């Protein structure tokens, strides 16, 4: 009988070793030195020795035969080829599956014969299947995210209860401080480093590029940014979609790139930076850029003419809009940029695009760091109050009639919040200038608040203008405005 604590140490150490092997394997094709090979050898060696002591002979033998391949490379008897990299990745996948099964109390045999055949025949080895890319989180305790949501709700109720009681001011301050700390800790618990999630992308890009016969240098900088679990889940599929698009539609074939005088190796970059309350994730490629002619033709077919460049770019986010002639393995299969935008919108995020012919395309996503607690400006029309997230706001000023010309205010497109939401008499005392270069006329400003956003039921989310609801002081409920949806409704 294996000691449970020992098994846990074995599992967590083995997962770590496999992560290292994966990382090294992906770097091998670019460059490697003696130290890298030695580290790889050591990782495999540790896996081999540890698993043999656990009695996992099959696993140990797989580590052993792969270790032999690495030693042959070290001794100069074998070269690093993309097939060697494939072998390393496939073996590490297989070992990971094995560990996953052990964790579930099962022990499934590894097909060693298959691997031995692969090794003896490394020349004609096909890349591994790319269809399923899931992300894995590190070995830590599992807590249902719904529990964390509940915890957050309870802590915000606690804050509300404290503020509603009359008590000694010192005591109240102390209680407020503790409850704030508690809330912050719960918020932090929900944060996941983007590195954990994005670590699958280099592998995915590599496999996609192999399938498409393209050469791609993939660069990723997450700068240690951490995001709320819910946000991370919501951006994973848009990220995969954008990266697939970049490989498939963005980067040209090596031949075409040479003809254009470009480096035959294309470049795809993912860059994440923290900005105020949001993270800005940029996915860019140095490929062919978005073809305005094609979009314009497609728009003409649908009876839309004389659009400016920005308006044409907006079209790629419309449902059912695709300029792709062919349906490839990778993209062009229905889910489009509209789904990407929709996914981001649901979490209060946004996406913009910049493109230049033959220079490339960048998609810029802005997502909140935290899904639940955000800073908002409480604004109002008549008796009603609404919350507008601070990350969407540039500045607020007094309404000045002389700046207002038809539907423009100070050069920005202008909307009267009251009119958009269907109130007939809508006074305007203030103008909120938004990050998306539009201006919103409102009657009242109540000030800045930290709000706990609750998601709305599905039926309500059909109302595009709102992304959630929040409880203000005195149990008053207000709706959280979705800036993009609001403007779409107005148009």
């Amino acid at each position, binding site marked *: 009988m294996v*000691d449970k*604590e*020992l098994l846990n*140490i*074995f599992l967590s*150490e083995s997962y770590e070793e496999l992560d290292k092997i994966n990382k090294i394997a992906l770097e091998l094709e670019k460059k490697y030195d003696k130290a890298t090979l030695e*580290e790889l*050898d*050591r990782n495999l*060696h*540790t896996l*081999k*020795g*540890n698993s*043999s*002591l656990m*009695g996992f002979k099959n696993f*140990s033998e797989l580590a*052993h035969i792969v270790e032999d391949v690495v030693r042959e490379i070290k001794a100069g008897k074998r070269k690093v080829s993309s097939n060697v990299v494939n072998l390393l990745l496939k073996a590490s996948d297989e070992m990971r599956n094995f560990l996953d099964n052990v964790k579930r109390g099962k022990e499934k045999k590894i097909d060693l014969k298959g691997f031995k055949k692969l090794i003896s025949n490394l020349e004609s080895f096909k890349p591994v299947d790319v269809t399923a890319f899931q992300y894995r989180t590190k070995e830590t305790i599992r807590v249902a995210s719904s529990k964390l949501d509940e915890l957050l709700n309870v802590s915000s109720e606690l804050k509300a209860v404290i503020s509603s009681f009359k008590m000694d001011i010192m005591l109240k301050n102390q209680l407020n401080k503790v409850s704030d700390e508690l809330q912050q800790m719960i918020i932090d618990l929900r944060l996941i480093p983007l590195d954990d999630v994005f670590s699958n992308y280099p592998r995915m890009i590599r496999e996609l590029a192999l399938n498409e016969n393209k050469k791609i240098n993939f660069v990723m900088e997450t700068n240690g940014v951490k995001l709320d679990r819910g946000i991370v889940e919501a951006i994973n599929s848009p990220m995969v979609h954008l990266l697939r698009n970049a490989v498939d539609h963005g980067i040209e074939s090596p031949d075409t790139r040479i003809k254009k005088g470009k480096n035959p190796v294309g470049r795809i970059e993912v860059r994440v930076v923290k900005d105020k309350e949001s993270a800005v994730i940029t996915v860019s490629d140095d490929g062919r850029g978005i073809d305005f002619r094609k979009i314009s033709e497609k728009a003409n077919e649908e009876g839309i003419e004389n659009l400016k460049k920005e308006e044409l770019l907006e079209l790629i986010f419309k449902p059912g809009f695709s300029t792709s002639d062919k349906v490839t393995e990778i993209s062009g299969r229905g889910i489009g940029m509209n789904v990407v935008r929709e996914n981001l919108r649901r979490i209060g995020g946004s996406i913009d695009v910049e493109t230049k012919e033959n220079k490339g395309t960048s998609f810029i996503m802005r997502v909140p760091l935290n899904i639940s607690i955000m800073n908002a400006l409480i604004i109002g029309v008549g008796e009603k109050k609404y919350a507008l997230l601070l990350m969407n706001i540039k500045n607020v000023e007094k309404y000045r009639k002389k700046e207002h010309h038809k539907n423009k205010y100070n050069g920005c497109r202008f909307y009267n919040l009251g009119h958009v939401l269907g109130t007939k008499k809508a006074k305007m005392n203030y103008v909120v200038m938004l990050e998306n270069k539009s201006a919103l006329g409102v009657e009242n400003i109540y000030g800045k608040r930290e709000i706990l956003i609750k998601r709305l039921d599905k039926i309500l989310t059909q109302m595009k203008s709102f992304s959630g609801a929040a409880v203000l002081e005195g149990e008053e409920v207000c709706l959280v405005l979705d800036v993009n949806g609001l403007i779409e409704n107005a148009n």
Partner: protein
Amino acid sequence: MLKVMIADDSAFMRTIIRNYLKEYKDISIVEAEDGEDTLIKFEQTIPDIVFLDIIMPKMSGLEVLKEIKKINRSSRIIMVTSVGQSKIIEEALKNGASGYITKPFKAIEIRRIIDKAMKKW
């Protein structure tokens, strides 16, 4: 008190050996996690027995062995090896290692080494 050092970059491997030594009372255990760490801790504690892994980061077990022997010749060094390392074992023995165990080793192998040392000590 018999001083035992376990030098291995794998926490799992260190735990296994430590578990095998649990039943001994008069024993103190020092752990090291790479070649350099082993040398530093060896100098500080001068252990009676060292279980020394061959493949470790920073310095290999063989390199560590040679340095250790310069510091104190009488410590007993047991190389922790794997199948297929016979050449390295041979070299280690030449350089003053007292013996070796091969993964997957059994508890009894570790205990035999300790028992023998206890008698001498």
